[in-house]
């Protein structure tokens, strides 16, 4: 099992590596990686039972990144924990690298490749069902974006999980309120999201997705209700930690230039 990490420094390091990776690869999707950085830090620092030196450990908790475009956050987290060398992050998005710019199962510690939205939760349901049928104690966590909840496949899975009493399943929604072409409210409003999940018979908690104490407190008491899948709606800020990126649609796409990288790293304060 992973030794406990200090989650605040881990979150800063994740954000630092995300900025460096996105800039080096001239890549997009920095905003959604930053919005879930605190969630990843608490998950991998305190909650998930994983062994970095043994990624395929059979009793590990399974983490599925459904919002695969935000993979820099997961790659950074896994490298910082020791799943693979930190230096490999420099290959992100390069020709021939296994760190492709949507999350790849060829990377140690990554369970499932995504990129097309609406695939992670159903796959997570299958894993959670397998654990139930095999009387295993490991748990399944999946991180969803808010925008991807437009996909009908998610609502099939949201209907499925409570029906099969998958209380070993945790869906975390990185609710940063901005999707590809505008705000969630403008594009296809999800409000009231918690009520929707509750109506589908999930146990739901809403938290500040940047408050480590709130994240930790919620995820240390799983399931939220026996017999029900747990949904953690994490209210987040797209681009969190870099002022010029926060709540800006532009940073779903744009790559920071040299000066912007320097500013971002200074604001994050996560080291070199």
């Amino acid at each position: 099992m992973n030794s406990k990490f200090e989650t605040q420094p881990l979150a800063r390091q994740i954000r630092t590596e995300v900025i460096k990776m996105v800039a080096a690869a001239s890549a997009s999707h920095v905003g959604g990686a930053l919005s879930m950085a605190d969630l990843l830090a608490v998950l991998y620092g305190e909650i998930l039972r994983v062994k970095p030196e043994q990624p395929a450990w059979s009793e590990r908790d399974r983490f599925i990144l459904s919002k695969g475009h935000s993979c820099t956050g997961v790659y950074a987290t896994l490298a910082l924990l020791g799943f693979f060398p930190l230096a490999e992050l420099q290959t992100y998005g390069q020709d021939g690298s296994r760190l492709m710019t949507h999350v790849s199962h060829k990377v140690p510690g990554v369970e499932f490749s995504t990129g097309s939205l609406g695939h992670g939760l159903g796959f997570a349901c299958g894993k959670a069902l397998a654990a139930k049928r095999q009387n295993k104690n490991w748990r399944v966590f999946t991180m969803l974006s808010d925008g991807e909840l437009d996909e009908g496949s998610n609502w099939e899975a949201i209907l499925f999980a409570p029906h099969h009493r998958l209380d070993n399943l945790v869906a975390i929604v990185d609710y940063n309120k901005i999707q590809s072409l505008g705000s969630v409210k403008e594009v296809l409003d999800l409000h009231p999201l918690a009520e929707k999940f509750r109506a589908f018979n999930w146990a739901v908690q809403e938290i500040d997705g940047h408050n480590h104490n709130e994240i930790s407190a919620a995820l240390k008491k799983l399931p939220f209700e026996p017999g029900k899948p747990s949904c953690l709606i994490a209210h987040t800020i797209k681009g969190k930690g870099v002022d010029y990126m926060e709540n800006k649609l532009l940073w779903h796409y744009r790559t920071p230039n040299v000066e912007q990288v320097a500013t971002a790293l200074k604001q994050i304060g996560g080291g070199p």
Partner: protein
Amino acid sequence: MRTAFINELILQARKNPKIFLVVGDLGFSVIEPYAEEFPNRYLNAGVAEQNMTSVAAGLASEGYHVFTYSIANFPTLRCFEQIRNDICYHNLPVTVVAVGGGVAYGNLGYSHHAVQDIAALRTLPNMTVFSPADPGEASGCLQFALQRGRPSYLRLGKAGEAKLHEPCDLTQGPVPVRAGTAPVAFAVTGSVLKPALEAAEILSQRGIEVAVYSCPVISGEFAGAFKTLWRHQKIISVEEHGFAGGFGSFLKEICPANVHIRICAIPEANAALVGSQEVLRKQAGLDAESLARTALEAI
């Protein structure tokens, strides 16, 4: 054929604790014996094929060989991206099973006609398409799919198909159901083998011999096994499927340059037609008399 499938699945599940059946709320009076005998390895996912397919991938990633089961296009085209990304890209042991390949659900209309499925599914990485002609081939294809342990698509007919030949090893390539060295051969996939055999019999009564092969395994992975066909100069491919991208197209992709292939399939324009499987086959030129005429033209 669907009964042969479920009976074989039960036999295999008794020996193999990793077999798991997930159905899309279809299979009334077919799947019950399996569900009753293996309740811990059975699931009705509801009328939700995208999720059914992702769930199957998740189960398969934890060690099961999963069979998803529904009819016509529902477990294939409806959830094509889940098959592509979740199953095939991850190379997971999931066999997608569709009942009603071709126009087996004739009068139910175009929504229930699976006439693009071979074309679509065979393009996917790690995928093998199984298209059996009779109950024995259905059992053999299921065994092959399990043995292979990778993504596959099992395209079944419907019910009541006659036995057309003795069971044989399907891993060895096209099955010479009506052997011979005639220059013309029918290469058939699926239950439309029956009218092809009848066509060969009609021709035989006129003193003209043609060979007939059943080709239940469609995959570039096994292209080498098709060499037995290439000793015939002219191949008439027969499939209950559209022309574009199907079995005939597959043969054209893998055949030597000196082999001529004529494709007998269902024209796109026939989508507007309504009728039984027998009538729809006739309108597409896939009945015995039409196939015999096509062979005569080839000769």
